[in-house]
């Protein structure tokens, strides 16, 4: 029984981290209709940036993270402004192929520079337990991950629902021509969205780098997790990514509890397939394009 409760709580907290991994993918899909295959690789790229910057900034992960967010915003602006905006007008498929190419480039450049060794970002909370009872042990790191992700998603949700910038984003998502007729430059809006998505990706990159560590080729496995999260929660729904992350996390760890850790990942994706059959739009699919 203790192990069951432990699995449930750990799954819930792991789900928070998954949500941070997926939310950028959801934003880009919900608003531009673009499936960003490079999302996972860009996230791992940010992990590498944080690691390298931290080494050169006397080990300060916080400063390294802030610098990384800025760098990723510049990369996002170039990626969207120079590459994706040009092909997006011709439909979502050519743009999808472009992001696929970008993913391969990032992954191979990382491998060329850093090799295929295991890397990680130092975490101050790695060995601290926030809660330690007979029933459940919660590591400070997992609790931190969940709190950061939940806060990130709440802030994003409020920005999109309540601010003029958020309304402009929703306008561009529902009807590009009508948005342009409001004087909203949708090309520029897309650039902001990509920057925002990569900034959230940097949060994912930080949490993943501290909690699990990473390899130069880890991006694709995190892309799959991001897909799972976004498909369960509903493409384009921000709050849905938190829900999707939690469901995927709980399904994986309860799967490990009932059937052994070897089938953990499998149970996660069986849950995804089941939910997809029952509710193809995802649980909270709302901000989708017309």
């Amino acid at each position, binding site marked *: 029984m203790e192990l069951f409760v432990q699995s449930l709580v750990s799954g819930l907290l792991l789900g928070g981290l998954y949500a941070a991994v997926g939310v950028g993918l959801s934003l880009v899909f919900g608003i531009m209709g673009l499936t960003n295959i490079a999302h996972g690789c860009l996230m791992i790229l940010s992990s590498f940036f944080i690691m390298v910057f931290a080494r050169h900034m006397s080990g300060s992960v916080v400063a390294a993270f802030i610098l990384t967010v800025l760098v990723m915003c510049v990369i996002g602006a170039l990626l969207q402004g120079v590459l994706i905006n040009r092909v997006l007008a011709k439909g979502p498929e050519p743009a999808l192929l472009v992001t696929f190419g970008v993913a391969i480039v990032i992954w191979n450049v990382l491998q060329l520079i850093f090799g295929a060794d295991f890397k990680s970002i130092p975490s101050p909370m790695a060995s601290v337990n926030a809660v330690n009872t007979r029933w459940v042990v919660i590591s400070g790191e997992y609790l931190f991950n969940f709190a950061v992700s939940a806060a990130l998603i709440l802030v994003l949700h409020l920005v999109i629902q309540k601010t*003029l910038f958020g*309304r*402009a984003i*929703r*306008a561009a998502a*529902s*009807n590009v*021509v*009508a*948005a*342009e*007729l*409001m*004087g*909203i*430059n*949708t*090309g520029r809006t897309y650039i902001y969205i990509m920057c925002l998505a990569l900034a959230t990706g940097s949060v994912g990159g930080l949490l993943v780098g501290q909690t699990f560590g990473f390899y130069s080729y880890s991006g694709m496995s995190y892309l799959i997790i991001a897909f799972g999260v976004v498909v369960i929660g509903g493409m384009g729904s921000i709050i849905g990514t938190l829900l999707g992350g939690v469901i995927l996390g709980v399904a994986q760890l309860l799967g490990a509890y009932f059937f052994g850790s070897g089938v953990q990942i499998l149970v996660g994706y069986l849950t995804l397939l089941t939910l997809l059959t029952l509710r193809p739009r995802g649980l909270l699919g*709302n901000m989708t394009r*017309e």
Partner: protein
Amino acid sequence: MNDNGLLTVESLNVDYGDFRAIHDVSMCFPKGAIISVIGSNGAGKSTLLNAIMGVNKARSGRVFFEGDDITGLRTSSIVAKGISMSPEGSSVFENMSVYENLVLGAFLPGPRKKRDILLERAYELFPPLKEKAKQQATFLSGGQRQMLAIARALMSEPKLLICDEISLGLAPVVVSDIYSRITDVNETGVTVVLVEQEVKRSLDYSDYSYVLVKGRVVMGGLSDELDEKEVKDAYFGINQYA
């Protein structure tokens, strides 16, 4: 007709692939006037408007607004110059409230600063919008949607307001009501372009009219001087324009 128009279109051609939808169209929209563009379904009215607004690219020809060449500009830049359009089928943002739709109309920096005044003015012009301010646009009636689309277009304080097929699918009483509001707007100095299928109402409400048949201008002039029967004949393709 007046040469010093607010907006002038010069020899505009627009293609859809191999098909030419707009043939060598030239028009002049004089400042302060109400201009109607009359044409049947498929005459190229919306194509013409979309080319003016930069939604479609023109094959050749030029569009000038206040003397500036605006051909090929991005739609949002054209709106920033002072042209606003209420699109066909009044495509409002369905899953946003009436208030949010109006706020988006005042997105540009200038109007954004005086948003509250503009909102008040919009509610005054179309009182039903004030009552429904918090409701989602999906729940509006056809007439209210059209009011919202026009009010939203006016939120950017345009010099030129283009209304694409206001009367489409609306009851005549509602259409008359909206038309009289548009006359009020025109009296505040806004130049208005009405794009319509209905001949009589268009001639009655406008100062100048153009008749569009199969992508060509076949008639144009002062609305008072145009004969309703001749316009209708042209419109239905009864005479040489067919």
